[in-house]
């Protein structure tokens, strides 16, 4: 579904992503983990179009999307949830959802997606008219995910959704990701929390210093001593 080949991202002389290949198949949940500054977010921004990569190509459903802007990638079905509460704090929950559904155009589809978001996250239905900034951290992250789903994507990329959340809320996130997968959504989960990623991902890429260090199923990675030492001790 998503094929990333040889992506490189540079900030001036600094090479943040150094020739990364990554593949996500339809219906898969793929994790991308690595320490701070590994280049995970830069890679994600090259895939969703916020950033122009210095080299490499991005294919989505067999068509090259790297010349496209973020809006066109979104219309192709590739949505993303940015790092750190991707919401408009001053707008109400309902307005935030409407912003997420903006590329749809069709009001009926938008209403259906709001209903779907509200069954996934009942709290959002309750807080519909509340200002998003007054929600708790966990609720804000739920809203950010719901906004990502509003454009009816076939694939959703999330950048560190667990950041700063209580363990119980992280458990809730895992439940939501499994449910979304069962509904047929393809997910790329960028995380520092290796435990959450191992819980939900079919395959995991481990990234360090701009490169893919290794890539395997969670079961195999968990047996890898290097992996266990570098990443799982923190999780």
């Amino acid at each position, binding site marked *: 579904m998503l094929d990333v080949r040889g992506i490189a991202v540079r900030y001036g002389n600094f090479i943040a992503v150094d020739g990364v290949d990554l593949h996500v198949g339809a219906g898969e949940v793929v994790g991308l983990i690595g320490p701070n500054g590994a280049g995970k977010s830069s890679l994600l921004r090259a895939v*969703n179009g*916020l950033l122009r990569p210095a080299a490499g190509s991005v294919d989505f459903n067999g068509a090259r999307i790297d010349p496209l*802007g*973020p*809006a066109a990638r*979104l*219309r192709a079905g590739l949505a*993303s949830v*940015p790092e750190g509460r*991707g*919401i*408009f*704090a*001053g*707008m109400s929950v309902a*307005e935030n959802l*409407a*912003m*997420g559904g*903006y*590329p749809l155009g069709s009001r009926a589809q938008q209403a259906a997606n709001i209903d779907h978001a509200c069954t996934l996250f009942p709290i959002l239905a309750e807080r519909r008219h509340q200002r998003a900034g*007054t929600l708790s951290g966990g609720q804000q992250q739920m809203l950010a995910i719901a*906004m990502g789903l509003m*454009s009816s994507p076939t694939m959703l990329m999330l950048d560190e959704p667990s950041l700063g959340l209580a363990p119980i809320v992280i458990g809730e996130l895992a439940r939501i990701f499994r449910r979304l997968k069962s509904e047929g959504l393809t997910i790329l989960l960028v995380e520092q929390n290796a435990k959450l990623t191992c819980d939900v991902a079919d395959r995991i890429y481990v990234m360090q210093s701009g490169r893919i260090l290794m890539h395997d199923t969670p079961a195999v990675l968990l047996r890898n001593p290097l992996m266990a030492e570098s990443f799982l001790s923190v999780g």
Partner: protein
Amino acid sequence: MSRPWPLLAGSLALCIGLPLALAGAPFAAYIVTGAFLQLLFAAGMNLLSGYTGITPLSFAGITGISAYLCVGLVMRAGWSFWAAWPVATLVAAFVGVLLGLPALRLRGFYFVLSSLVVQTVLTLAFTAFASLTNGDTGISQIPPPSSPFVAGGTLGGTGLDLLIALVGWAGVVISWRLAGSGFGRRLVAVREDPELAETLGVDVVFCKLAAFFISSLYAAAGGPLMAVFVGFISPRSFDLLASLNIWLMVAFGGQGSIAGPLIGTLILAPLPSFLLGYYQVKDIIYGLLIITVTVAMPGGIHGWISNRMRPRLP
């Protein structure tokens, strides 16, 4: 607002009734019409400064371009005001978009600075190209528009007051409709978090340019009206202070709301007329207000009131 019609009809009646009622009181009519003109400017400034989060201190410069262009077309080229007005407005609005291009790169304070430079250069240009603008002396005895109803007649006095009141009213109503639309919400999204807006598929560049064009249309549409209303224009009419005054009306009333600029304009627009003999006092008051607004009331009067009225969370 679910039932806007009574409010729309009421405000329209007020805009028609006020100039008619003041037909016998020229000084009061002058103040009221001046306020309507400021209302138009404030509504346009608010779309950019309040909703999109871009403060253009070159606003009055756009008004100036439009005013000089229209007056030139009428007094030199012999155009009818009714042809020169829309042409000057469109040209100046396009210039406004060009001058707004730095906003695509510069954020917040840095754009304000760049627009301040643009405004200063425009003021200098109005002075320097004296063959077109008559320099610091300004252009006086600008003829009133020809009457659209009576052949050979002119539209002056109450007729012109009515025209300006209606344009001001339409400007506020259009800005209200825009702010409540999906486009208005996207402008707010661009102001709040341009990167998130982009992630959600909003074309940030288009939104900023569109906001600049619409806001410049407001600035430009008012220029020719101001010229025929006052009968005199000079570089001082369109200088940095003029831009700041418009911004102050918006910010003092409350940016990013429709009521805010209305409140700000109603309070501040008549002020200079009451302080005619004390020009410096006016500038001091404005300066103090600018400080008060930026330091103590970032949400303006409207923000302050709605904060008080919002129920406190337990």
